[in-house]
Structures are given as C-alpha cells and as structure tokens.
C-alpha cells in the first residue's frame, strides 16, 4: 500500500519531467528522424540551455527572456556542429562529439567556473518549479509546459509543411534527389541542427528552473533519453499516429512513459547509479527490435517458399 501511494505521489513529478524532456525529444526527432543523422551535440547544448537560463535569471533577467537567450545559445551550438559537418566535411556524429566536448568548457565558463549554480524559486520568479508540481494552483508547472509543447508541435507542423520544411524533409530522406531538385542540402542541414539544438536548450532551460539549479552534468546521456522518447513513442503509436503533428506528440508521450517507467523501477528499489546503464539498454533493445523483426519475417518467408 505504501508502495502504491508513494508511486502515485511521484506520478506528477515524473509526468512533468517527461514533458520537459519531451521537448528535447522533439529536437532529437528533427535530427534523428527527419534529417537522418545522430546529433550528439545535445548532451552539451542541453546543459548550455540550463546554464544560460540560470545565470541570466540570477542576474535579474526575466525568465522568459532567459529561455529565449538559452534557445539562441543552443542554436549557436547547433551551428557549430553544422559548420564542422558541412564546411569541414567531418562526419555528423564526430562533429557533434567535438561540439559536445567543447561545450563542457564553455558551459563551465557560463556558470562562472562552477559545476553547479542554484536558482531558488524563493528568490526568483521562475516559470516552472517542481515544488508546486502536486499543487492545484496556477503555480503548477504542468499547464505551462503542456501549452508550450502544444505550441511547439503546432509550429513545427506548420514549418515542415512549408516549401522550406518540405525541402528539409527531402534533404533528410534522399539528398541526391534533393540536390537534383535544386535544394541546398548543406543549408538545410545547418538550419535543422540549429532548430534542433535550440529546442534541446529550451528543454534544458526549463529543467534547470524546474529542479532549481543548472548542473554541468545535467545533459550527460541526454541523447539517449531523447532517442528513448522518439523510439518509445514510435513503438506505441506508429500504427495509430500517421499525421506529422501526432508523431511529434508521440515523442512527448514517449518521454513521459520513459519517466513513468523509470519512477516505477526506482520505487521497486533500483539503485539510481544503474539508471544510465538501464536507459542505454532499453534504447539499444528498441533500436534492435525492428531489425530482428525483419530478420524473423525473412526467415519465415524462406520457410514458406
């Protein structure tokens, strides 16, 4: 009984965290699914978003302006990866790793050389805070982050339906075809990486406010959580959600599911130190399943033939 009640108690927190990470998941969806590259910049740009946001709020800047600046910083991080990839011809994955590594130093500098910078909800007027997550009041973070996610999904739905957005989808799907149709694939890659990392930084900025601090390590393994959100969303909803907006919604729900499952395993007495290992294993299995399925159907086909 105590298990159940403590589990229920932790649900609002898990849902909020999931929705906030879901915004990052949507950013990852842009690079991983639409542009067909794995962008490892996110581990760095997530913390950059948190760092920029917290430092600005501590300096007295409005939290709204702070998250916009955090997004701009994330976009710059994406730009760096994009330039390494398109102008220096470095493979996308390595470009992301280089940016991610350099961001570690940059993030420390942003945070004044400290690995952790608190931003207390007592002193500052934060947009979201986990303190109020179980309160039925306007201070509850859930309505705001749900609204932001909805607005974001609508914006992206519109954008990827425009001429430029269609060109970007074609770039990710078949660059040869895109070039033959006069599409500048390098520019599109730059735009996609900037947009994606801006969203990742937004997510980091919100999470830093939510937990009341930015931390140099808050983005470690972020890419895995992002991929988990994307993949869980697809596993559960790919049959039902065909529309692009719904696919993005599935990512957000995927992140929530991820945090709920995490919460349950923690309640079951799992060691928090093992979380990263388990996260990585979950993502590896879900990435492998489609391939195994294909192998299985092929074998079956041979038997039938």
């Amino acid at each position, binding site marked *: 009984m105590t298990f159940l009640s403590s589990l229920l108690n932790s649900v609002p927190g898990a849902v909020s965290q999931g929705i906030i990470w879901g915004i990052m998941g949507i950013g990852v969806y842009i690079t991983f699914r639409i542009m067909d590259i794995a962008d490892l910049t996110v581990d760095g740009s997530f913390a950059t978003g948190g760092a920029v946001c917290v430092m600005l709020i501590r300096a007295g800047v409005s939290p709204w302006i702070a998250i916009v600046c955090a997004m701009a910083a994330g976009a710059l991080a994406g730009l760096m990866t994009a330039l390494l990839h398109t102008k220096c011809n470095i493979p996308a994955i390595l470009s992301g790793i280089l940016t991610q590594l350099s961001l570690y130093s940059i993030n420390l500098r942003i945070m004044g050389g400290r690995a952790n910078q608190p931003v207390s909800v007592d002193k500052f007027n934060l947009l979201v805070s986990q303190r109020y997550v179980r309160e039925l009041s306007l201070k509850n973070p859930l309505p705001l982050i749900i609204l932001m996610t909805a607005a974001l999904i609508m914006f992206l739905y519109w954008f990827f339906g425009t001429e430029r957005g*269609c060109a970007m989808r074609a770039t990710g*799907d078949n660059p040869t075809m*895109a070039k033959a149709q006069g599409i500048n694939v390098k520019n599109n890659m730059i735009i996609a990486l900037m947009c994606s990392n801006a969203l990742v930084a937004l997510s980091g900025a919100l999470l830093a406010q939510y937990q009341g601090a930015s931390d140099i390590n808050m983005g470690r393994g972020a890419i895995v959580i992002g991929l988990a959100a994307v993949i869980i969303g697809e596993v559960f909803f790919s049959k039902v959600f065909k529309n692009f907006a719904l696919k993005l919604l599935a990512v957000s729900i995927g992140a929530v599911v991820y945090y709920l499952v995490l919460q349950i395993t923690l309640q079951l007495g799992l060691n928090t130190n093992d979380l990263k290992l388990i996260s990585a294993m979950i993502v590896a299995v879900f990435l492998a399943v489609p391939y195994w399925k294909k192998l299985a159907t092929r074998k079956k086909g041979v038997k039938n033939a």
Partner: protein
Amino acid sequence: MLELKNICKTFNPGTVNEKVAIKNLSLTLSDGDFVTVIGSNGAGKSTMLNLISGALTVDSGSIIANGKDITHLPDYKRASILGRVFQDPMMGTSANMLIEENLALANRRGQRRGLRWGITEVEREFFKKSLKKLNLGLENRLDTKVGLLSGGQRQAVTLLMAVLRKPELLLLDEHTAALDPKTAAKVLAITEEIVQENNLTTLMVTHNMKDAIEHGNRLIMMDGGRIVVDISGEEKKNLTVPYLIELFNGASGNTEANDAMLLSK
C-alpha cells in the same frame, strides 16, 4: 544549348587506382537535340552526365549552358536548368514522402523555397492531370508514399518530376536499365512522349543499342573517355545494330567480341 569544351576528369589521380574517365571531351548540343549515348562499361558515359549535372566537378575544361559558364556552379544551382533521372529508381524520389509532395518539390525546382505552404490545391489538380498522362493509375494515389510504388512507377514519377518545370536539358542516365524489359519499354515510351511533347534537349545514356538507334536524332558512342562516333540526321535514321557494332570496333580499335556483345544485348 550546351557546350562541353575539352573537359577532363581523372579519378584517384596519383594513386595506383588512377583512372582517366574523361579525356579532352568536347560536345555541343543544339536546342531540341535528343542524343542517345552508348559505350561499354567504363567508357565515361555516366561520368560525363555527372560532370554536366555537377555531381562531379571537372579537372579542366569548361561547361557552357546557354552561353553561361556553369563549370564551377554547385549541383543544386545547376538543377534550375537540368532535369535528371537516375539509373537507380530509388535515387530520384523521396521514398518517405507522398507522391504529391515529391511532385510539389519538383515543381519548385530553381525557385526560392520560402514559408508558403508546400503544396497548393491548384497544384494538386495539375499533378493529377500530369500523372494521368503516364497511364499508370497514379492520378488517384497522390497521397501514397512513393516508397510503396514499384521501380517502374517510381522511375515514371521521377521522369515527370524532371520535366514538371520544363528543363533546358534533360539528363537520363540509363534510367531503364534497372527495370524489367516490359516496364523498361513502357518507361521508354513515356520518355519519348514527354521529350517530343515538350521538345526537350535530351541526353540519354543507354546500354541498349536498339533503343539508342530507335530514339533521338543523334547518337554518340563513347570509348575510353572520348567520343568516338557522332552520328545525326539521315545517317542516324538508317543506322542498324550490326553497322553500329562495326563502327564501334573500327572507332575504338577494339575487336574483342566482349564489348560488342555487351553493347548489343
């Protein structure tokens, strides 16, 4: 319309794998020319097309289109005047996008892509009409993903995409080679129809001598990165396969039956 002046291309220069693909090649196409290009494997046919399209860059020489030097123009910019169909049916279309989305992309070739909606109702009607002409029943499947189409259907859609905005030059790189004979014949018939209807300047690479003779008003044969035979007008009309093989052996100094057999199949 198109002028290639002394273009050269060598792959892996200075290594043991060095391969001279195009050697001092010059070619002038007039408006409305439909040129078929034949030659054995490694003759430089595809390389020539890739140099024209900008997928590869020349080592030396220049490429002039409509009096404008495009030698150093990146491929996506050249696309405004070029329509391309590839040998691999998977290459010319975006598999995860709908037929109408693919066509809408092609309908904006050479134009600025802004923040207007990617496809309009007027366009849909236009696409339906254009697809209907292909006679493949695709006009009612605008919202089907291209990846679900057969190779022949995809190649036909790619062909339509290449000419939706009339290109100044159509490049066909063995675009029927990956299809079964029946489908290949159908796609070729569609090609002929589209080229005639729009009076397109066309370069068509083919492995099939019969096709090369039956289509176009001019035929060039390549060997070792050069053009060794260039036939047009009446002479082209009266061409036969045996004569072409004889020409090939004479021109390239190659009497091995291999190449001739490869070409005539």
